[in-house]
């Protein structure tokens, strides 16, 4: 097998505030035929392959998985849509509906489905992370015009803004020749400058409460944390494991096992390229109030700041990270996507160096960071109040 992965350095953060959800809709349009080839998927399927893509707030990533001997088919297709799209009005019309159904399926027609649509604008006031990749509203997607699509392509979809990563059992020279053949005459373009509104430092506790027709109260505490490239990211990653990943984690033991306030509690981070969020979220046990949870949670966090974890706990956190990474590296597709992402971070080889960064983390780092993160002025709290009642 072989994988051809193309990462474009464009995501929802690059959208205009009155045209959100666009980067993701555009991803759908990339499958609507290119300048010389009417269908993207059919020739690839005919070569025994398949393709998909995803969009985040930061990036748009396309991948093709196919038998190695037909790799040229993927390069032919992928390079042609980098050269230019077909810009078919029918494709825009259909994909607009498809994305609207995706919006409904994932965010509107699910219990707690709109939580991130509510949390983002609470945690971010200025930075475009204040809207979700899917967009702020259905209306933005309904209003997209073909001219918007063309302008977006011109600006963001050129070699200067892309990272191509190919894997499979090949000679490097062979792949290099193929890439030069298919991509060599595409104008390089200019990497668009990224000047995003800066998020001012949060100085006040924020809270929003919404009522929803759901069976249980839910809560989301979002703390501002460092960007993906900062050292803080790695410490926060480990801190979130310690606080709320497993059934031996601090929050699980105190808030669920001991106090029985919640049915479910997790801590995790968003690995966003700009300033990220450290999230503590969960659902309430019926009959327990979110006020009770709130005081208990802050107490746990304060305790944690005062009492460092043991060397044994640190050791196991590191071992767990090593195990997870070993499993994440299984499969060609994962490895290819990861390499492209690390190249975006600055150097594909970074993937080999992270192990050392995690290993160098000490107990004090975790404690220091927890003191910095877990203060009220750094927190945005979203509460979903259930309107259904159960005994």
């Amino acid at each position, binding site marked *: *097998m072989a994988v051809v992965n193309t990462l474009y350095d464009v995501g929802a953060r690059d959208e205009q505030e009155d045209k959100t959800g666009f980067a993701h809709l555009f991803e759908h349009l990339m499958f609507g035929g290119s*300048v*010389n*080839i009417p269908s993207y*998927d*059919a020739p690839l*399927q*005919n*070569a*025994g*392959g*398949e*393709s998909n893509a995803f969009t985040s707030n930061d990036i748009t990533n396309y991948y093709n*998985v196919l*038998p190695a*001997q*037909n790799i040229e*088919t993927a390069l*032919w297709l992928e390079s042609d849509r980098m050269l230019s799209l077909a810009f078919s009005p029918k494709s825009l*019309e*259909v*994909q607009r509906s*498809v*994305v*609207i*159904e*995706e919006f*409904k*399926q*994932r965010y509107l*027609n*699910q*219990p*707690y489905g709109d939580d991130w649509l509510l949390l983002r604008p609470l945690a971010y006031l200025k930075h475009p992370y204040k809207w979700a990749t899917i967009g702020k509203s259905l209306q933005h997607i309904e209003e997209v015009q073909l001219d918007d699509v063309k302008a977006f392509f011109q600006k963001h979809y050129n070699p200067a803004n892309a990272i191509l990563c190919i894997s499979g059992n090949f000679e490097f020279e062979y792949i290099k020749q193929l890439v030069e*053949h298919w991509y060599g005459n595409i104008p390089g373009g200019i990497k668009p400058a990224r000047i995003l509104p800066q998020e001012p430092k949060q100085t006040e506790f924020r809270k929003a409460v919404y009522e929803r027709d*759901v*069976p*249980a109260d839910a809560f989301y505490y979002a703390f501002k944390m460092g960007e993906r490239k900062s050292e803080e990211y790695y410490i926060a990653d480990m801190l979130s494991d310690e606080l709320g990943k497993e*059934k*031996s984690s601090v929050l699980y*033991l105190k808030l669920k*096992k001991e106090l*029985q306030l919640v*049915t479910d509690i997790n801590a995790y981070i968003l690995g966003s390229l700009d300033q990220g969020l450290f999230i503590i979220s969960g*659902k309430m046990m*019926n009959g327990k109030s979110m006020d009770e949870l709130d005081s208990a949670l802050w107490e746990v966090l304060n305790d944690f700041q005062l009492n460092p974890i043991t060397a044994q706990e640190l050791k*196991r956190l*590191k*071992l*767990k990270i*090593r*195990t997870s990474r*070993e*499993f994440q*590296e*299984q*499969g*060609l597709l994962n490895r290819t996507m990861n390499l492209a992402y690390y190249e975006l971070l600055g150097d594909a080889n970074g993937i080999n160096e992270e192990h050392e960064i995690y290993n160098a983390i000490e107990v004090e780092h975790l404690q220091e960071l927890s003191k910095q993160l877990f203060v009220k002025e750094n927190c945005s709290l979203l509460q979903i109040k259930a309107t*259904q009642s*159960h005994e």
Partner: protein
Amino acid sequence: MNRIEAPRLKEIDTINFIEPRKVLVGNIAPFYSIENQGSEAARIELFFKAGTIIDRPVLASLCSGLLLAGTSKESATDIHNNIDDLGGFFDINLSQEHTVVSVYALNDQIIPLLTIVMDAMHNASFPEAEIEEQIADKKQRLRVSYEKVNFLCQRDFQKRLFEGTNYAKVTEIEDYETVTRAEIIDFFNSNYRNGLLKATLVGRLQEKQLIEIEQLLEPWAGKEVTNNTPIFKQQKGNYHIEKTATVQTGIRIGRIMFDRKHEDYHGFVIMNTIFGDYFGSRLMKNIREDKGYTYGIGSALAEMKDNGYFIIGTEVGAEVAAATLKEIQFEMTQMKEQLVDKEELELVRNYLLGQALKSADGPFAMMDLFLGVEMHGLDYSFYNEALKKLKQITADEIQSLANKYLVWEEMLVITAGQQLID
């Protein structure tokens, strides 16, 4: 340069199957292992007969959640601490026919991890407090699921398609009110002790370590119950579950089929791929890529022990649910009345060849491929048969399979959401 014409295609390789090492644990339960070369990642999976069909599903569900919930000497937390000290992970998956306990760790931690898990299970004491907590959690999760049209139609589909058999049984909130600790313990003793039907390992271990694993598993080994497959009656008709204030409607359509031993199996899989089982399928092309009614639609041949069923699933805009049903019916008629053209058939042939290659990529995928035949008492020659069929099948044969099986009037049709608008 020529960008219009596609690069010439080359013939796709055949698959190199890896036969797992096999030993019988306690002379009964097979233990299969495949080496994971060049990686430190190891996984062990244990298949117990404790699925939902063997008794009341609520017992299978609660029991599976309580396997690592404490012994007379150690609390649930102690056990999880021990697992975490090894950097290990576990998950427990409940299905109709099995409960699968999986553990994940680096090679040199996998045996200590398995030892902890087997010890916790062997001495499981099912503490009252843990049972209560499980019940509260599961009731809440079920209530959340009740809010999803997807869940509502899937569950109703299951209840109706398998009517009169254990496969139709589902858990409702009330079931949690009546269940007792004694029943859970009974369930554990009957379906876990001497209930290990098979085990797998993907990892890189020494021969003597494999023997160590066999010894750990031996006390659990049991034999599969034979002749427990019920006879399913074809169910048909349209049923709607009303759920107000929903913006999408869930749809499930299907019928009872057969398993991998049936003579039409390979042909049906190819026919179904064209109909609804890949991104370029008829259903996707029409209902997503032409009409924009949905984010996704697909059909599949789902497999059970000695049986199987056909299922179409999607969630569509509430206002186009009725129109979607008509389009699905239309696509079935197309499959029955028109021959698949040469190009489409050739494309699906190549696509499936590529998929076959992909499904054999890496040791974890290889183990799944192996289990896919092992569960039906077959071997890898099954896949060679599939590849042979792929090369030989004709448009006529596909049409006659569609006429035999894609009969709208024989389908069970379940919708969940707002009232359907014609």
